[in-house]
Structure formats: structure tokens, C-alpha cells
């Protein structure tokens, strides 16, 4: 059984003029110690997916259907009290902005001790020892000093290290990281990503990494899912998708990267932009921007088809697979 299994998750936002469907039938799973990347552009629903796992979506958002099974128990059906026992403890979160986690008026040490004592009945002294150990793990220079410092006394990169230390405090099973390095400089981003990767491997923690950066995904994750307009359109092993993407959107996303183009030449570009949740196109949400779109694509959302180890929701890919199969049958 997978550690985390999300089945057919629907998340909606109740706004004037009816509900907006932010997630439509999302299913994926995460094994123990596995690193999964959630990729998509803004508005694709990747952050909503991350937040809804711990039922942290703020009003007017709500989970309208589906299951989030963590070790067999449905997080979507849990009470706030039960969830609090899991948040930060079994499943930890790292946000893009460290100040979402850190309280500016308390020292790092106080905050870490409080976080431990909220879940474990141990003395302050022991809690402080654990805190120090985690700060050492994230390779912060002079960790003892940091315990008595306030968040504003640290640089951006160091704050994000503290956040990772806090996430590791209670030996969680899963870390959900929402764009953890987007606000950081390139060199610091590389350091933090490498650190996160090393720690997850050492401690055998599963990582769910939400990012828009395909380079980071390919460096850190083993499997990835690509989201578009509230749906998963492609999921499978990272290397396989990066090297040979099936869905036209994933292909476009990869080919639009400057590092894929010849210097000075025009870049590959996907026309148009992601539809807003207010007017999601019928059928495959990508069809207005897709070169391969046919009448069929406008009618209904394509089912997932399997290509290699990758699941893709695209009629064009399904047709190609079908053709190939027929060719092989004809040959034999």
C-alpha cells in the first residue's frame, strides 16, 4: 500500500456566480521515501493540491469529493483535531515564504521547542536538544547561536534552512514543499535543493515538491506529475517524461525553455495562456492552445492511456498508440 494515496480529489472555490473547480478528479500516490514533483504554471492547481492534502485550503475553498488516504486513513474526512495531530508531525510543509512558518517575534529556539512540545510530551531541555540536532543536520553555521536569534537576523537562505530543520523536527513521513526556493537566488537555490534532496534520502522521507522549474524537478524527483487547469495531464517517471514527453503541453513546456533552443533563434512557443478557472474550455482544457486538437478534443476530457511507464490524458497520444498496435498486429 502506498504511503499517501489521493483518489479522485475535487476541490472547489465557492464564489459569486457558482463554484470554481480548482481541482477536477486528481489521483496520484506517493510511496515511502519517494520524491514526487508537481509541475505546472500558475493557475494549474498545483499549490491547491498541496494545501488540500492537509486540508489547509482557506475559505471559500473546500474539498468537494474524493479521498486522501494517508496510511489508509482518509485525511479529507478527518476532524480538525485529528488533522492537527498529523500536520507538522507526520506530514510537514515547507512554504515559499519562510515568514509564513516563522513568527517574527519569537526566537528560532522557542518556535522549534514549541513545535516539538505540541506533539511530544518531553521536557524543554530535551526538545532543545532535538532542535539543535536538526539545525546541525541542515548545516547551518554555528547552530547554538541560531537558537537564540530572531528570524529577521537571518538571511533568506538561512531562514529556508531553519524551515527545513523545523520540518524535520518530528521525523515526518512526508514533506510537502511548495516552491521552496523560488524566492531565493540561483546559487542559494542550488544549495537548498541539494540539502533537501540529501536529507530526504538519508532519513527516508517522502518529498512532494511543487515547482514550476522543470530543471529542479529533473534534478530532485523520481516521479513527476504535470498539471494543467486543475487536472493531471501526464504522470510517470521524471526521466522518462523529461526525455520524451508525451502530452503536447508537456512537450511545449520543455521546448519553450531557453536552454532547449539554439542561441539567438526563436524559442518554441505555446500560443495563448492558461484558461482562468472562470471559463475552463470543454473537453481537454488544453485544446484551444494545442496544435493537434481535433473535434474529439473539444467534446470530452480524454481518458488516461499508458505509454511506456507514463500515464497521459491525450487523444492524440491514444491514437498513436492505437496505430502502433495495429501496425504490430498487421506485421505479425
Amino acid at each position: 500500500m502506498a504511503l499517501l494515496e489521493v483518489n479522485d480529489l475535487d476541490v472547489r472555490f465557492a464564489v459569486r456566480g457558482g463554484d470554481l473547480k480548482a481541482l477536477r478528479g486528481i489521483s496520484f500516490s506517493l510511496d515511502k521515501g519517494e520524491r514526487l514533483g508537481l509541475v505546472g504554471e500558475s493557475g494549474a492547481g498545483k499549490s491547491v493540491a498541496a494545501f488540500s492534502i492537509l486540508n489547509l485550503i482557506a475559505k471559500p475553498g473546500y474539498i468537494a469529493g474524493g479521498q486522501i488516504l494517508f496510511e489508509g486513513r482518509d485525511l479529507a474526512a478527518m476532524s480538525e483535531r485529528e488533522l492537527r495531530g498529523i500536520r507538522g508531525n507526520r506530514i510537514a510543509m515547507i512554504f515559499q515564504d519562510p515568514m509564513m512558518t516563522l513568527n517574527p517575534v519569537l526566537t528560532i529556539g522557542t518556535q522549534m521547542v514549541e513545535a516539538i512540545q505540541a506533539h511530544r510530551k518531553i521536557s524543554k531541555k530535551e526538545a532543545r536538544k532535538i532542535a539543535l540536532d536538526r539545525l546541525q543536520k541542515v548545516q547551518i553555521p554555528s547552530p547554538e547561536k541560531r537558537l537564540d536569534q530572531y528570524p529577521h537576523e537571518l538571511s533568506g537562505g538561512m531562514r529556508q534552512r531553519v524551515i527545513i530543520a523545523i520540518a524535520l523536527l518530528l521525523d515526518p513521513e512526508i514533506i510537502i514543499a511548495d516552491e521552496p526556493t523560488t524566492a531565493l537566488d540561483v546559487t542559494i537555490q542550488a544549495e537548498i535543493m541539494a540539502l533537501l534532496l540529501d536529507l530526504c534520502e538519508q532519513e527516508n522521507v517522502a518529498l512532494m515538491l511543487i515547482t514550476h522549474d522543470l530543471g529542479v524537478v529533473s534534478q530532485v524527483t523520481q516521479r513527476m506529475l504535470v498539471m494543467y487547469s486543475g487536472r493531471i495531464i501526464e504522470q510517470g517517471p521524471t526521466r522518462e517524461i523529461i526525455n520524451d514527453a508525451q502530452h503536447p503541453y508537456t512537450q511545449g513546456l520543455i521546448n519553450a525553455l531557453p536552454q532547449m533552443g539554439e542561441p539567438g533563434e526563436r524559442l518554441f512557443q505555446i500560443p495563448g495562456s492558461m484558461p482562468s478557472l472562470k471559463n475552463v474550455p470543454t473537453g481537454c482544457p488544453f485544446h484551444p492552445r494545442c496544435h493537434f486538437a481535433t473535434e474529439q478534443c473539444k467534446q470530452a476530457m480524454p481518458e488516461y492511456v499508458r505509454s511506456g511507464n507514463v500515464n497521459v490524458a491525450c487523444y492524440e497520444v491514444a491514437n498513436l498508440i492505437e496505430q502502433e498496435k495495429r501496425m504490430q498486429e498487421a506485421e505479425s
Partner: protein
Amino acid sequence: MTSPLVKIRSLEKRFDLSGSLLEQLRFENGRFRRKQEAVHAINGVDLDVHKGETLCVVGESGCGKSTVARTVMGLLSPSAGEIHYDGERIDHLDGKAVQPYRRKMQMIFQNPYASLNPRMTIQQTLEEPIRFHYPQWSATEVRDKVHEVMHSVGIDPDWGSRFGHEFSGGQRQRIAIARALAVDPEFIVADEPISALDVSIQAQVLNLLMDAQESCSLTYLFITHDLAVVEHFGTRVAVMYLGRVCELADTKTLFATPRHPYTQALLSAIPRLEDDRPNHIRLQGEVPTPVQLPSGCVFHGRCPYANDRCRQEIPQLIATDGGGQVACHAVEEGRL
């Protein structure tokens, strides 16, 4: 080589932090002392931008790249140094004398959500600069020009009566580019023009900028932190660190043979699709604050090759065999 279009000479910019005289007074060791603090955003930058090229300025936050852009455009006045445009010194001009340059030099901003006036329609936003710089034009001429630029950036001219907030980020950035192109500029400063946009939209905007450069023979000063974009887009690259240029070279040369240790670290930190793990050069520590600059080479605190000379003497840009310039004692001495 012909003379450069834009010439920046020993440019410095400090931002005073210490406030008024009263706020500067500190009581230390039994006596009052006047303490002045400043952010040293740019510390002696020399750059030439040649006609028709794209000069990219890269660096991490706090390196002064945006300050260079804003100082060149006259949004900030330099603390020291000179800026020349087409042979004329422009940094001390004011009033009427600067107006011709306000047309020839345009700027594209980072945040398309803030760079369009929310209370103006697209038509008004685009018409105003044309009317201002070409007061002799008739209403029809102005309207035709607005249609032409909207068309050239791929925005339907029929949408002119809409407001900025009715457009997506990518479309807004197109409109901001249209505004810059509307007055037929020669030189455009683009300050992180794509960093607020999504990946698929970034490609659209970069293509648009390249098309515009070709059809209007523009010269760009392109500010960015994204090295992958530089590799694709730039003719030449200047790498900045703590207000100084540490390396300057043709894009190809710089990416093939980076000389400065900082450039090397920066290049290694780009997350590449073909990588299976991060494989960057690890630097010690973090960027120091530009309030108290390190002595000697600004990079010495994080540099694995730093020696005593680096800690004391500021390195000057020297020519390399690849045709570029680098400011590093280790390269000069052949240690690197």
C-alpha cells in the same frame, strides 16, 4: 569598432540609510558620534552597449543590476560617474534638454501587474506617450500608430477600450512592450521583463523582444538573474557581484569558458534538464550586505581561491585571451 551607443563610466550609486542629522547621532563610549551608513549599490561600473547588440547584465539580488538599469534611464541620479548616449553626456541633463532621450531610450519593467496604470484603458496608455512626443500628429495618425504597435505585439486593437486588469500577465507585458515601442525608440532597457511570467509565456515574450529587435533595429540592455535566458538571448554578458562587474564577455565565450570563480559557480547552479542531481560548485557563506563592503575583492569571502592579495587589493578588469574581461587576481596570476 564604432563608438558605443551607451557608455557607462565609473558609475557609482549610494543610497543613504542614516536619515537626518539628528538620527545620525550615536552615543558611544561616553561621547556623541556622527554615524553615517549607506547602501553601496554600484561601486564603479564601466559598461559599453554597442548599437544593435543585447548586453545582458546578470547577478543575484543586491548585486546592483537593477540600479544600473534605473540609473541609465535617469530614474536615479548617479552618486558619481557618467552616462553617455550616442556621444552626449546625459546624466546631468534636465528639463527640455533630456526630452529627446526620453523618446529614444525606453524601459520595460519587471512586474506587468504594476507597470500599467490601472485607471487607464490600453488605448489611453498607448496614446499618451505618442501624443506627448509627437504633438504635431493628427488624431488619425496617433490612432493608426496605436493600432500598428498593438498589432505588432499580438494584441487585438479592438481591445483598446479595456483596462489592464482585464488581461493576463503575458498580455500585459505585451502591452508594456507596445508602450515602449510606440515612440520608436532606439535603445530599450528591460529590467527582468520575464521573471514574473510563467514558463510558456516567457518564451512568447522573449520571441516578441527578439522580433522587435530585428524589425526596429533595437539595442537592448537586458537585466536578468536567469542565466539560461542570457545564454539564449544575449550578445554579450556582464556578470555583477556586489555592485562591481566581475566578468564581461561574449555570451558564447562566457558560457564555454567562464573565468571568474563567481561566474563558474553561477553557471553550475543552473538546474539543467539533463541533470539527475544538483551538481553545483559549493560556495562558502552568503552574499554580504552592500552596507559594509568587504575590503579588496568583493567576492573573497566566498571564493575558494582567495589569498591575502584578494583580501586587500581590489582587482581591476583585465583582458583575457578569449576576448573578454575579468576582474580576478587568481586569473591574472595564472592561479586559475
